[in-house]
């Protein structure tokens, strides 16, 4: 910590938050500012507080889902079961709400629990059966899709979201701040705490960096992997519940638009797709960036196909950019 080297001297003059900032996170935040600036040139509405608050609200659904994705990506795995776990969370919560007052009270926990169960199945497949996560989560996604289609008989579910769920997504418990944003903030704070202050968080990073070293250090690596997948499933389902509240009803394909953005947000935020490296702040930046990009593209009336192309290109470009960083492995 002494000022013996030039590098040390320069570094010590910089503010602490800049010294610790990950270049990837800084890039993501810079892109957000740039997008807002470009949007502002197009229409001054993009810089109004109402618009920005609205974007935060829309971002919070993706934020909740991306949180789970980030845990799994930190392990060096991936969760492709997001689309139908999101839909299942929404549909199951709405379905439970139809069963009287008890059902309404338990609607949210029930939806989340269904997601956790799918996550546990994913986790068992990856950690204990050693199936590549890309395969097992793709398979569970298909299975859940099938189950949901059977449940609805091929039609859109008639159950609309009950008042509690709608309040959770669109109400204002804190004046001026949508509940969805508050929920994302709470989940985010809990995640930051878990990743930096608990042995679970350390184990997640350790497994992502070098699973063998973590195992030989006496960590129950399989349990950690399973918990991470269970959390990812639970958070996806909870994201679905919130979405149902936002849209007032659950729909079959409602999760399809969240898989690629969730992965993109995590990766844009500087989390290594190989695992072991990344911060939650980066994921927050990635989520906001993706949401803004989506919004601005739709305001500019870019057709859906164009949006998909831009997504894919941005992800590949960012992976190439970050992939060039010197690796310590």
């Amino acid at each position, binding site marked *: 910590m002494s000022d013996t080297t030039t590098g040390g001297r320069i570094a010590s003059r910089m503010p602490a938050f800049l010294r610790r900032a990950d270049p990837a996170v800084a890039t993501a935040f810079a892109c957000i500012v740039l997008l807002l600036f470009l949007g502002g040139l197009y229409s001054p509405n993009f810089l109004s507080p109402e618009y920005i608050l609205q974007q935060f609200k829309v971002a919070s659904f993706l934020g909740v889902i991306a949180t789970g994705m980030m845990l799994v990506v930190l392990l060096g795995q991936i969760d492709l079961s997001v689309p139908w776990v999101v839909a299942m969370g929404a549909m199951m919560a709405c379905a439970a709400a139809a069963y009287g007052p008890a059902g309404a009270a338990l609607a949210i926990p029930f939806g989340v629990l269904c997601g956790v169960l799918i996550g546990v199945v994913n986790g068992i497949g990856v950690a204990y059966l050693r199936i590549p996560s890309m395969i097992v989560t793709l398979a569970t996604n298909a299975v859940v899709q099938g189950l949901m289609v059977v449940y609805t008989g091929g039609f859109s579910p008639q159950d609309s979201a009950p008042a509690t769920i709608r309040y959770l997504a669109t109400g204002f418990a804190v004046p001026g701040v949508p509940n969805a944003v508050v929920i994302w903030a709470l989940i985010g704070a809990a995640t930051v705490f878990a990743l930096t202050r*608990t042995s679970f968080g350390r184990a997640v990073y*350790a497994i992502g960096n070098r699973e*063998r070293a973590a195992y030989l250090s006496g960590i129950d690596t399989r349990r950690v992997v399973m918990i991470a997948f269970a959390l990812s499933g639970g958070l996806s389902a909870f994201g679905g519940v919130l979405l149902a509240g936002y849209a007032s009803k659950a729909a079959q394909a409602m999760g399809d638009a969240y898989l690629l953005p969730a992965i993109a947000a995590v990766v844009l935020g500087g989390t290594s797709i190989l695992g072991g490296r990344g911060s939650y702040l980066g994921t927050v930046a990635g989520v906001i960036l993706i949401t803004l990009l989506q919004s601005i593209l739709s305001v500019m009336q870019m057709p859906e196909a164009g949006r998909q192309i831009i997504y894919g290109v941005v992800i590949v470009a960012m992976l190439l950019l970050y992939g060039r960083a010197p690796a310590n492995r």
Partner: protein
Amino acid sequence: MAGTVPLFRMEGISKRYGGVRALEKADLTVEPGRIHAILGENGAGKSTLIKVMAGVVSPDEGRMTMEGRPLVFASPAAANQAGIASIFQELSLVPELSVADNIVICDPPKKFGMIDRRAQRRIAEAALARAGADDIHPCALVKDLPLSRRQMVEIAKALARRPRILILDEATSALAAADVARVFSVLKRLRTEGLALLYISHRMNEIAELADECTVFRNGRNVATYAAGTRSEHEVVELMIGREYSHVFPAKPERDFRGATPMLECRNLSWTGRLNDISLTVAPGEVVGLGGLDGQGQRELLLAFFGVLRGMSGKIMVNGRAVRITSPAAARGDAIGMALIPEDRKTEGLMLPMSVRENLSFAALDRLTTAGVIDRAAEQRMIDDMVKLLAIKTAGLDIPVGALSGGNQQKVVIAKWLMRQPGIILLNDPTRGIDVGTKQEMYRLLRRLADEGAAILFYSTDYDELIGCCDRVLVLYDGAISRELTGSELTEHALIASALNLAGGKPGVSPGAAA
């Protein structure tokens, strides 16, 4: 020899890896129609020599000639082209492909750009016949063949490249006695056909049966070449002794551990043929060494204790109580209190991109947490203690551990386990690739931990270290304990002799696999 040009000659070949010299001005001459055996202890330079000949590594200096013409290999394929084929201990066959596919895998015969399957089969049949394995069908899948047959395919694959020099590196170590005899008759026939064979083995009886001449390596240099049978086993061992050392070891206390209840004990430990019926004890305060040549089951034995291996038979006892250790998590637990310093700190000991702090406290986190939350003040205290205790030199606790020097990285690996105050410490070659100063610190540390009551099981490939550090050394050969050495028996001569499983090591021990 004057006047005639030898088939192959290397002169003044040197190769360094960092500060370690693997070969130092080594010379070797290979003649056709002869079987030439290479001898030497761990780290004498045998494997580097072969890698240079096979084009896997390029030497720093020196030259190689084939019939007087200079040779420079850019790749293993270039060495093949020049007529040098090698067979390594680990098989290089693709199990899912057929025997014929494997034999011609480097250079398949082609017709119109496609593989000519008929020609391929012809080549394979010829090569198999030459390898004395014409009973193997060329279309059989390699995965369906037993290990000994695969070894024959490996030889056929090498022969299909029409080599003039064939290198066999421990090529028989996986074979049973009857198969060894078959391989030998093939090798002898190849010799009469005029092939030059370079044979590396640690089985002295095999060398006695096969070799025409022998070259002994020591410290990366060839120290003697002699016609087979002109030196006694005792003389051969003397030639192999004499690595240069400048270490100072802490004094060993005079103690008798025989009465004490062993802290760590195993009985009849066996595992899939890699460990055979191993029984040993380590008393509190005792440093027990594991010796022998590399890869005789030492690593597996340590992993067996640490709960990593599945399907193991035998009994492990801690403080006289039988225990079942099913995972490293169980091994490190309070009931057992075991620590393993693994072989490769970069892949098994540390998470290199993570900080020094996170690495140091990682194995002891369960003791620093309440309900999963890390007590950062307690963590800092323990880390400070360890950094001071082991004198770890680091620019800070939050830099990646990968930025430290090798010696300091190894100190971090040891420190992270000492945080748990383990009663039983297993070490897998902990001083490999670290500087002399750190080595000596480590020797003193081991002795101090033993004096404080720890039971230490210490595998080292460095014989001098075993002699200097250990109260007792168990020498492993072929997955079994071939000899136990204590007190004045613990000499380099005895260590090497028993590592080679020579009768001179201990009377009455039969060689591992007599041909």
